[in-house]
């Protein structure tokens, strides 16, 4: 370990803490979602047995990571890149909202434009032309050649 990397260490170890909390929350969610399912016995397991058994495991793992995060120092996490984190899922959302109503051509084109805004290296004119090209190609490939059942245009 060099001195520089020592400085970037932090306590609690954020990576461990966040992952541990995620696991604990997931276990809680599964317990809630399966609360009405019968658990049964080991010899005759109900539908709730295995999910709840795994969730107990997840809860233990989660608590372990949360506990460990206060004991060992962790790496510093770079703050998330919000632009990508919002725009990439948004592009997928645009696609799924538009594909049936507006057709594959328009959905594809807008999906790519929204996605491209996620990168700071995007050049406007270039991406416009490229998106048109790829959208047209997708329509030909997926609808015409692979007969994906989806409208091409809104009309």
């Amino acid at each position: 370990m060099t001195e520089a990397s020592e400085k970037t260490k932090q306590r609690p170890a954020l990576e461990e803490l966040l992952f541990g909390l995620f696991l604990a929350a997931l276990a809680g969610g599964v317990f809630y979602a399966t609360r009405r399912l019968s658990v049964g016995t080991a010899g005759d397991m109900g539908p709730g047995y295995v999910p709840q058994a795994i969730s107990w495991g997840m809860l233990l793992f989660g608590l372990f990571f949360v506990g460990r995060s206060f004991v060992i120092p962790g790496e510093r996490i770079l703050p998330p890149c919000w632009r990508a984190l919002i725009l990439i899922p948004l592009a997928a959302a645009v696609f799924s909202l538009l594909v049936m109503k507006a057709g594959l051509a328009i959905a594809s084109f807008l999906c790519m434009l929204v996605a491209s805004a996620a990168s700071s290296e995007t050049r406007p004119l270039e991406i416009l032309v490229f998106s048109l090209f790829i959208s047209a190609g997708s329509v030909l490939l997926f609808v015409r050649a692979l007969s994906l059942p989806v409208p091409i245009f809104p009309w």
Partner: protein
Amino acid sequence: MELLDNLMIGFSTAMQWNNLLFCLIGALIGTMIGVLPGIGPVPTVALLLPFTFGMPPASGFIMLAGIFYGAQYGGSTTAILVNIPGETSSVVTCLDGHQMARQGRAGTALAIAALSSFFAGTVATIVIALLSGPLSKLALSFTAVEFFSLMVLGLVAAVILAHGSVIKSLAMIGIGLLLGIVGIDVNSGAERMTFNIPEFADGLGFVSVAMGFFGLAEIMTNIEKPSQRVIVSQRMKDLFPSLADLKAAFPAALRGTAIGSILGVLPGGGAALPPFTAYAVEKKIAKDPSRFGRGAIEGVASPEAANNAGAQTSFIPLLTLGIPSNALMALMIGALMIHGIQPGPQIMVEQKELVWGVIASMWTGNLMLLIINLPLIGMWVSLLKVPYRLLFPAILLFCCIGAYGVNNSVVDVWLMLGCSVVGYFFNKVKVETAPLLLGMVLGPQLEENLRRAMMLSGGDFSVFVTRPISAVLLATVVVILLVLMSPAILRKRNEVVES
């Protein structure tokens, strides 16, 4: 000779003109994505899966397998020419391959890489053919108890090569198991964790999950980093290696093939271990180790052979036992199930044409790669000039269309979207997502076998240790876990995985 009969069945399937065509398409797509950094075989296979549903299963699988080994070829091409490993498996090839290219021997390096891979692929095909029969016969005597233990072993062994913490990977398997359980419980008909979404009643679509975690989340993580500039200036000459080159490379390729074939069979053998091990061995036995890293031809031949051999023998656990050894094999299992084929030892008997056709197609596919790829190198290299800022919106769009195509429903696109956000979180906290996919695919079978075993034993858990095969399998799990947790091994493993 049953083996010869089986290989004959295989080749008669693989040689059908439509299967040859699908093999070629798969190998070409594979090479393309192998060349392009930023998109790997997992999202590509996931994307193309929905479009194989209409094909006969054998054709679909031949194409998907082609993508897999094609990607290995493509990855080594860029490793040699521009020092960028297209796939993790070709990281070591950069070391000596790119040095050879800088000395003006790019053509030789590429040819040696291709020839070694082809040689290894041929041997590995024979290894698969030899091992598959006996292994699946052994597995046919398995009951629910043994299958449960076998799956536990498969899952735990797959953790060996996951990057980072072993415990985190185990937790990821658990998350995967939970995801796999979503849907209607076959025994009681009760809906589990479907949140009243009718599309989830049949289970979560693993294609969408895989594309969310491996496609979209990767994009989000990649965008954060500034892109690298790619400079391609090598001119191709003397494509055919000299006799002296071949003499130096052949024994190395032989050793690499052996190492790759063995390591590939192990669950979790994955893409990184065989080439790294092969390189280390070459360096160790060389008379003059200082040549390595300066364009030693053995440093290209052996890892490339190991890489390809390992890639192919990793199909053995899948075909014989129904256990995936890495994320890609998990996808293949999912694909089998969508075709209505239950993976497991019985497919060796019930689906002879499919299994042996795929095995034989690996050989024809490798031959095609050898013949077509060397002349096409110029085209592949020009692909590298496509910048990531154009690539990622297109990848995203294809993922959306692919997810939609699974069931022609936007629910799968939303599922992918959700997984992408979670996947980004996993990348941020540095946990590997591959174990999750394995857990998800094996989840339903694991539960089914556990319940059946417990039903038979009347709720007595000791049945897992009193039946000999099961006891051996579980003992192996314990040994692996103990070994992995020991600090000395942990350090060694991190060196290998991260170097």
